[in-house]
C-alpha cells in the first residue's frame, strides 16, 4: 500500500513517526514521509499527489484536537474520503471520541508494538475488500482503537 506518514503543526519530534515508517517499510509498504511542520492543507495535498491509500498522522504537540479534525475535513472536501486515517503520538484518552468522530479509525499511543499497526492495516484491507466503511469519508462506527 502507499502510505503517507505526516507530521502536522509545530512539533519537531519525529522518532515515533520514523519507527512506524520503518515498520511499514519492512512489511513491504511504500511509505512517503512528509517531513516536519506541515499544515493540514499541505498534508492533504501530499496525500492527493502521492495517491496514498492510508494516512498516518503523528503528533506530540497537544494540538491533535484541532489539527487532525481539520485534516480529515479537508480530505473529505478534496474527494479523498476513501483514504484511511490513523493517528499516533501523545493523545489523551479523553480525546479519542473526538478523533473517532472526525473519521480517524485507529489511535496508537506510546508503547504500542509496531505489529499492532500492521494488524490494523490487515483489518483495513479485509474491510475494504468487503466494502465495509473504512475511509475517512465513510460512515462512522468502526474503530480499531
Amino acid at each position, binding site marked *: 500500500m502507499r502510505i503517507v506518514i505526516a507530521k502536522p503543526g509545530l512539533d519537531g519530534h519525529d522518532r515515533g513517526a520514523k519507527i512506524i*515508517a*520503518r515498520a*511499514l*517499510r*519492512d*512489511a*513491504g*509498504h*511504500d*511509505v*512517503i*514521509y*512528509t*517531513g516536519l511542520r506541515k499544515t493540514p492543507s*499541505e498534508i492533504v*495535498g*501530499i496525500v*492527493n*499527489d*502521492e*495517491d496514498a491509500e492510508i494516512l498516518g498522522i503523528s503528533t506530540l504537540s497537544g494540538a491533535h484536537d484541532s489539527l487532525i479534525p481539520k485534516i480529515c475535513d479537508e480530505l473529505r472536501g*478534496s*474527494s*479523498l474520503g476513501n483514504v484511511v486515517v490513523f493517528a499516533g503520538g501523545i493523545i489523551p484518552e479523553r480525546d479519542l471520541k473526538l478523533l473517532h468522530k472526525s473519521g480517524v479509525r485507529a489511535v496508537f499511543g506510546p508503547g504500542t508494538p509496531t505489529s499492532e499497526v500492521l494488524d490494523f492495516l490487515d483489518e483495513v484491507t479485509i474491510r475494504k475488500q468487503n466494502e465495509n466503511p473504512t475511509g475517512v469519508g465513510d460512515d462512522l462506527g468502526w474503530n480499531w482503537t
Partner: protein
Amino acid sequence: MSSINELLELAKSGDRRSLSRLITEISESDEIPQFPPKSIWTLGVTGPPGVGKSTLIGKMMKYWVSSGESVAVLALDPSSPISGGSFLADRVRMDGDYLGKKTFIRSIPSGNIPGGISPRIRPICQALSACGWTRIVIETVGTGQSEFRIASLVDRLLLVDGPDRGDIIQAEKAGILELADVIAVNKSDLPGASSSAQNIRISLGLTGNDNREVILVSAIKDEGVEGLISAIEACQSKTNTMELAMRERLLSEWDSILVLNPEIDEIIAKLCDGSITMGKAIQILGKSIDNRGV
C-alpha cells in the same frame, strides 16, 4: 486502458485528483500505455547518494515557478530488496512557499527493476506533459558509476556530484559522466567542492572538444542555482544518443517482463536449493515468456 484515457481527459482539464490517479494507473497497468508523441521537456537528475539532488531540485523548482513554468518532479527512491517496501523521503527536501498549483511531486519506489528505472516512467512523463507540465524532472535513486538507464528516458541529463568525491582518477573512469549534459558540483559552501569541480573539468578537458560546463552550486545556500538553470535551459535535446536510448529502453522493458514473471520466485527458490542450474533457470524463463506471447 479506458480508465487511463478518461483520467487523462479529466487531468488535462486541471483536476489534480485525476492526475494523481492517472499516474497510479499507468504505474500499475499490465501493458505499457502509449501516448501520441508530443514535444516534452524532461530532465534527469542523477548522482551519488547524499550529494543533495533533492535539495537542489527543490531550489530549481523555485526558480522555474517564479519564471512561470509548471514543474513536475518524479522522485525515485530505492525499494527494499528484502521486503519490497520503501521509505520515500525526497520530497522532505523540496520544501518552501513556491510549492502549490504550479508544482507536483510524486515519489516513486524503484521496485526490483534492475537500473531502478521502470519503463513506466516514460509514459508517466508523456501524461504529465499532456496535462500542461512544462518542466518534468526525474530524480534517480542515488547511483554509482554505471547506472545510465536514466539517460535513455530523458532529453537532458544533469549529473550532481559533491565535494571530496575522490581524486581525479574517479572523474576519468568511463560511465555516467560521459552522458551528462550538465554537471553540477553541489555543496560549494563546503571545503573540497571547487577542487572536485576542477578535477572534473580537467577530465573533460582531456578530450579537447568537450565544452560541457561544470557548475558549482550550493543548494542549501541558494548560490549558483540560477546559473545552473541557464545552462540546463541552454542545452539542446539530445539527438545523437538514439541508439543508446533504444537499447536501454529495450533492456528496461525486457527486465521488467522478467522481474514481473509470476514464476520468478519459484525459480529463484529452486536455484537456492540447487535443484536446477542457472542454465536451466534461463531456459524455463525463456519458455514461459514465449508461452505468454510477450
